[in-house]
């Protein structure tokens, strides 16, 4: 398998600190993007715990006999359970830290993890960081935001267009850190040669449309695409921290 990837993060134009964190691990074919929040230092810390925990768990889980995963026979199901376990443990660690230490009270983070595993890709997410797939020239949003406005769109109270400019569009309904146990959305699908993935924080998706993302990913390789996308968000106001991780599957 040969994969090319590139991650870029930027504080944006309005904030003073960057609470986003991302991770690229070429050995595990693991890509993570987390958007932290809460308090003065909590946000950065929460997203750092999340990326580190997910990486640590997935690197060591096969040799760790202490960890009990649900009993599944298919290897792909096992991978799914590993990823779920990793994200949930991250949530638990943040929750414990936030409960134990006052300066971290109220911290939380989104989590978005992509793992390419044999002939499949797995994507896990909590919150409103998004994953996209560009395949055969078509862009597809893989994740469904766990956000207040998305709930309203689903309920038919708000149109997708209204949601884009809604004042409370950044309020998420699920996050790592606020609940001891969090429900993780997981998908497994077949990966194909030439697939391009993009993981981003809402600092990007609030300012750059899906069609534009598709266009940039189509036209550029991971390095250029990541930089270009972050730059676009900053040029359009850069209200929030912006993080982009672009991944291209060159060979299976």
């Amino acid at each position, binding site marked *: 398998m040969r994969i090319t990837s590139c991650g870029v993060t930027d504080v944006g134009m309005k904030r003073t600190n960057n609470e986003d964190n991302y991770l690229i691990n070429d050995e595990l074919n693991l890509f993570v993007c987390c958007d932290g929040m809460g308090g003065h230092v909590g946000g950065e810390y929460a997203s750092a715990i999340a990326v580190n925990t997910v990486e640590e768990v997935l690197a060591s889980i096969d040799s760790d006999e202490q960890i*009990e995963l649900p009993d599944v026979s298919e290897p792909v199901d096992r991978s799914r359970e590993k990823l779920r376990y990793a994200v949930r443990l991250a949530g638990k660690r943040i929750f414990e830290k936030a409960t134990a230490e006052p300066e971290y009270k*109220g911290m939380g983070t989104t989590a978005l993890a992509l793992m390419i595993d044999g002939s499949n890709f797995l994507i896990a997410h909590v919150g409103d960081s998004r994953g996209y797939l560009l395949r055969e020239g078509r862009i597809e949003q893989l994740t469904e935001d766990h956000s207040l406005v998305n709930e309203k769109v689903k309920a038919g109270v708000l149109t997708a267009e209204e949601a884009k400019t809604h*004042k409370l569009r950044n309020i*998420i*309904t699920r*996050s790592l850190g*606020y*609940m001891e146990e969090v429900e993780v959305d997981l998908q497994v699908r077949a990966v194909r040669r030439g697939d391009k993935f993009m993981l981003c924080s809402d600092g990007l998706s609030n300012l750059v449309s899906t069609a534009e993302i598709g266009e940039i990913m189509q036209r550029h390789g991971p390095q250029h695409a990541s930089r270009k996308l972050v730059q676009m968000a900053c040029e359009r106001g850069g209200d929030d921290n912006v993080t982009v991780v672009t991944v291209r599957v060159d060979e299976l």
Partner: protein
Amino acid sequence: MSLTPTKKTPSEKVRTWTLLLIPDRDQVDVLQCIIDVGQVRIGLVAGAAVVGLTLLGLRGVSWVPGGGPGRAELVTENLMLRQQLQQIESQLDQADATMQRVQLYDAQLRDMVRDNPVRPGSGPVDEESEGLADEYLDYDEDHPGFEERDGPVSLEAEELRPAESWAEQVMVRTDAYVARLEALEPRLGLLTEDMEDLLSIQAAFPQVWPAEGTFTSGFGYRRSPINNTRKFHSGVDIAAPRGTRVVAAASGVVQMADYNSGYGRMVEIDHGYGIVTRYAHNSSVYVRKGDWVDAGQVISTIGTTGQTTGPHLHFELMIDRQQVDPLEYLPH
């Protein structure tokens, strides 16, 4: 006789036991009996429950000599009470989840209020209310939380729990819950006020473009089209045919609708928070001083009054009486 686990792997708990009855002499068959630990546990629990309830029943009988409720009724009542307690506990669990969500929203909204750098003008957002904001930023320390319980309580334990202390636990939990809600309410109230301030500040900035047309000149120094000298251009120009409608960029109160030799027929709208917009060179003006206008409402038409070289709208945005570049605030 020997007792050996039937199934044992290092990671798994023993589930069943095999009881072998081996006779002293060979001619009799070995008796084998597999015991399921779960069943034994249920059996034990059922036994204990029967004993417990019987004792309770007896006590009930001894308290109410003759003519009182029978044992069977007491047993039924006891079971019902236990079921109710269980229900209350699961409702508390649900309330817990709701509370966690509220805390999640609360934290995010506070982030929004804190992160928003917009603090212009002399509106209601001042040092004092920022102080208030700080006050509710650090919270919770003194308020009782819940004791964390170790996972879901199993049915067996539930059945064995003495009803009195169990009910007491539920009461303690309920009290803590009410205290926490009471602590949260004023915080949410303050937060709502700050959010309203924030949202109305945002609404005071231009929401819509004041006219449709061609953007012909930006904000800043330029060569004047009138006398060809270098001059500061205090707004943006949108060229469009005479009579094109001009709308209010945001809602507010008309503070001036008058003629000025340079600006021609002009309108000024006060949006609050020190934010004012100005619309110049109109042909007709439809609003008067003191009128309330909504964002997007037609206020005038484009013309050539005042110093112009052709029909266009000159649009200015002022924050605390300082002209700023409207392009930075107009929607993309």
